[in-house]
């Protein structure tokens, strides 16, 4: 297929390109003072085009509206799987590299179950998928989807398993079988939940496409290590009338990592940088293929699966299907996903200054930390959960964590001294003892010289603050 004209990359669109297609009446209905301001926000993806009421409501703007939609469409199609509040949006990526703007729609992680699992085992697994949760920077991170695999190849068994899954979880479902009869049995019971149909292949694409159209569900396309075939299939399926597609170029463990990473990268670059619409769909990674290495011990497979998942989270996977339900192997990837999908435009610093916890008095401890958001929230949560009455002086380290702030000279005796002074803490306590983070120990001498306060070197991790205070507060007068 020849791409007639390469569409402008999302970062190449200027506010002026957008402005020229807006009504340019400066009516203010979108909440911005003028159309240029709205155009700028549109380019930065801070507002939705639909906020421009005249554009949508007035017929004369019809063609401008569709041009704008086209101009601002992400190079990777956004596909919704599931319904209601647990529905996940997949893909919708605007850029290839996160520093170009930001990544949208954090990679959902689906965990598999099979239609041959005994009922109690299936229910136990679903319960664990539902309940595995971890609190990270005040957010709950968790698993997102359930993939039901037909290992039986029996429509009746698959249908029963899908029913059981549906009755025990609200999470979106992926129906996994290459047999259209089996798929149909699953869809008959699940279609109202808008499951993902996995997958159309070179052999079954017509039947799968019919099912996708009939039930109005998104369809995955599977062509292991064959991007040419993948493209041919998406071309065919688009012509066939299926719009919500996802691509699976195959995830290969061990020595297959080279081609796997290469395929994911080539697909994403073709879509984002060369405007190849046939590859402009979300990519599915299946780290659970690590489990096809059958004779290895389970910990090794969990480990290998986690490593594959990490590499694919970094390299463009928009959806992952995994098998291990072990917290130790899932947590690093749940956190990695949260990290990679953090908006690089948002500040990661909190306001420096004084924080007060509980009801401290003039004899209460004074602690110091950095203003990197994660450090601050971690320290705060440790103080609060331990019910400590104290003052916390947040130093302006320009958003660096303590260790890097000390190494990068953002937390110095001087910045600590300034923070103490401007916090007004001197008038709140009558002692002159300050507890600094263990990772800033090397600053103690200088801080004492500069401020006249005695320094107590606190723990290296704030989870030990309570234990530290028990041992060291009130300070022993020397």
């Amino acid at each position, binding site marked *: 297929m020849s791409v007639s004209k390469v569409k402008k990359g999302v970062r190449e669109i200027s506010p002026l390109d957008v402005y020229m297609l807006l009504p340019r009446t400066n009516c203010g209905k979108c909440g911005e003072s003028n159309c240029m301001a709205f155009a700028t926000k549109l380019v930065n993806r801070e507002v939705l085009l639909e906020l421009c009421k005249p554009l949508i409501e007035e017929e004369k703007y019809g063609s401008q509206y569709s041009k704008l939609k086209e101009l601002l469409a992400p190079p990777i199609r956004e596909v919704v799987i599931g319904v209601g509040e647990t529905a996940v949006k997949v893909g919708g990526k605007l850029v290839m*590299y*996160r*520093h170009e703007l930001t990544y949208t729609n954090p990679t959902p992680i689906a965990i598999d179950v099979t239609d041959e699992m005994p009922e109690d085992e299936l229910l136990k697994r679903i319960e664990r998928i539902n309940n595995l949760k971890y609190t990270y920077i005040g957010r709950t991170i968790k698993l997102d989807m359930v993939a039901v695999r037909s*290992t039986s*190849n029996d429509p009746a068994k698959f249908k029963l398993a899908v029913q059981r899954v549906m009755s025990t979880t609200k999470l979106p479902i992926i129906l996994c*079988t*290459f047999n259209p009869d089996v798929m149909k049995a699953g869809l008959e019971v699940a*279609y109202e939940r808008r499951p993902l149909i996995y*997958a159309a292949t070179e*052999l079954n694409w017509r*039947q799968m496409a019919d099912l996708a*159209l*009939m*039930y*109005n569900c998104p369809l995955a396309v599977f062509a*292991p290590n*064959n991007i*040419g075939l993948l*493209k041919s*299939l998406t*071309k065919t399926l688009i012509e066939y009338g299926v719009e919500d597609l996802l691509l699976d170029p*195959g*995830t290969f463990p*061990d020595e*297959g*990592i*080279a*081609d*796997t*990473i*290469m395929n994911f*990268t080539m697909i994403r670059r*073709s879509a984002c940088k060369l405007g190849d619409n046939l590859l402009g769909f979300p990519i599915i990674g299946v780290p*659970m293929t690590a489990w*096809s*290495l059958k*004779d*290895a011990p389970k*910990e090794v497979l969990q*480990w290998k699966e986690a*490593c594959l998942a990490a*590499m694919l989270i*970094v390299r463009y996977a928009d959806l992952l299907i995994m*098998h291990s339900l072990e917290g*130790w192997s899932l*947590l*690093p*990837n749940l*956190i990695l996903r949260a*990290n*990679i999908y*953090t908006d690089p435009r948002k500040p990661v610093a909190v306001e420096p200054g004084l924080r007060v916890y509980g009801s401290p008095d003039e004899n209460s401890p004074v602690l110091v930390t950095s203003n990197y958001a994660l450090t601050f929230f971690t320290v705060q949560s440790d103080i609060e959960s331990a019910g400590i009455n104290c003052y916390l002086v947040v130093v302006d380290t320009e958003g660096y*964590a303590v260790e*890097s702030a000390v190494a*990068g*000279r953002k937390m110095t005796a001087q910045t600590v001294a300034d923070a103490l002074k401007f916090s007004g803490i001197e008038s709140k306590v009558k002692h002159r003892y300050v507890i600094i983070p*263990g990772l800033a120990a*090397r600053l103690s001498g200088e801080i004492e010289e500069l401020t006249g306060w005695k320094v107590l070197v606190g723990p*290296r991790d704030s*989870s030990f603050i309570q234990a530290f205070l028990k041992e060291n507060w009130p300070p022993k007068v020397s």
Partner: protein
Amino acid sequence: MVERKGGADEGALIKIGPKLLDLLREFGEIELENVEIEAEELEIWIPSATVVTPPAAAPPKVVPAKPMEILKAEFEPPIQTYQGRIVEVKLGATRSEGGTREKVVKIGGEAAPSFYIFEEAPPNPPVISADVFDMEVPLPRAIKMHVQDVIGDPAAWAKLAVDKFGADLVTVHLVSTDPLRKDASPSDAAKTIEKVLQAVKVPVIVGGSGDPKKDAEVFKKIAEVAHGERVMLSSVTLDMAEAGLLGEIAKAAREHGHVILAFTAMDLNQAKELNRKLYDYLPRDSIVMDLTTAALGYGLEYSFTVHERARLAALAGDVELQHPTSSGTTNAWAAREAWLKLGSEWEPRELRGPLWETVTALTLLLAGVDIFMMMHPAAIRTLKEVIGNLYKRGMVKPESIADWVSIKI
């Protein structure tokens, strides 16, 4: 403080760490023969020509003329050309080159983003340097159990890291020279480095204490004593430049044939500034950059992005960023999730910890890092294996995963 006091479960945990290591080692040697068997199972799912009938609940949409066969589309790998190339840096020197190393390590030389192997695989594979400390320091238990016999003996530790962990080189952190700790003298530090150079045949990285003034003295002394060995001095900073210490260190490095690691705190403008200052003294092939590694969960995304940006800018032609990079990946252990007991559903932490370090490394591997300074043997082994696998283009057998949907686990 990083290490917690041993609990009742200590015995059990100590077993699992080395066991995993054995497992990973053995597993690396298993051939993939058994996977091929699955190709035969493919037959099972070849679909029958079923006519699908629409259910009453959802009537079919009316769609115009549908294709009856696959419409062919061509795919061309999206190859790009780059103006820039990363400088190649050699660490270590053999006898014929003026040193005593039996193995030298070359890094850099890339002319494409990290592992865009459809364009070009990195000409020199990324390498792993194991961290060695010259005195007892707080270590997470998951690491300590692998090195407890060699703590306090940097030469033995270095040997263990090379022989048993498979490190390509070692970084000796001269923590004892810190004026706030033992304040060991530059000549004591030099003796330690000499011992390590005798104990291992691989190149050596010399880590300072982080005190700019003291590091300058220590680096100068070691540059002299290790003349010709092409060690890497880790690291110099803009603070050293401000304090007027940079020139003398860089001159010593040049005079005695060493490499310098330039550390900046996640800021490419500062990285460029420091490199410009170093160009006054050193050839470009003697400079490596440390752009700061934050732990997974504690700012890894900034490290990832600063490395990705640096590499893309270098390839686009920014000569001041055309240097290989080094990552203090051991920083991964600064994340409490790497070592803290979190509740039974997240255990065992003896696996979670090394995986934390591994994931931190893998993330930066794909951003273009050339040297990984690491600690846990399982993390080192995994990264090495992944790097090896990333070169094995064209080895996949599509049939090996074609029926992943129905594999029985």
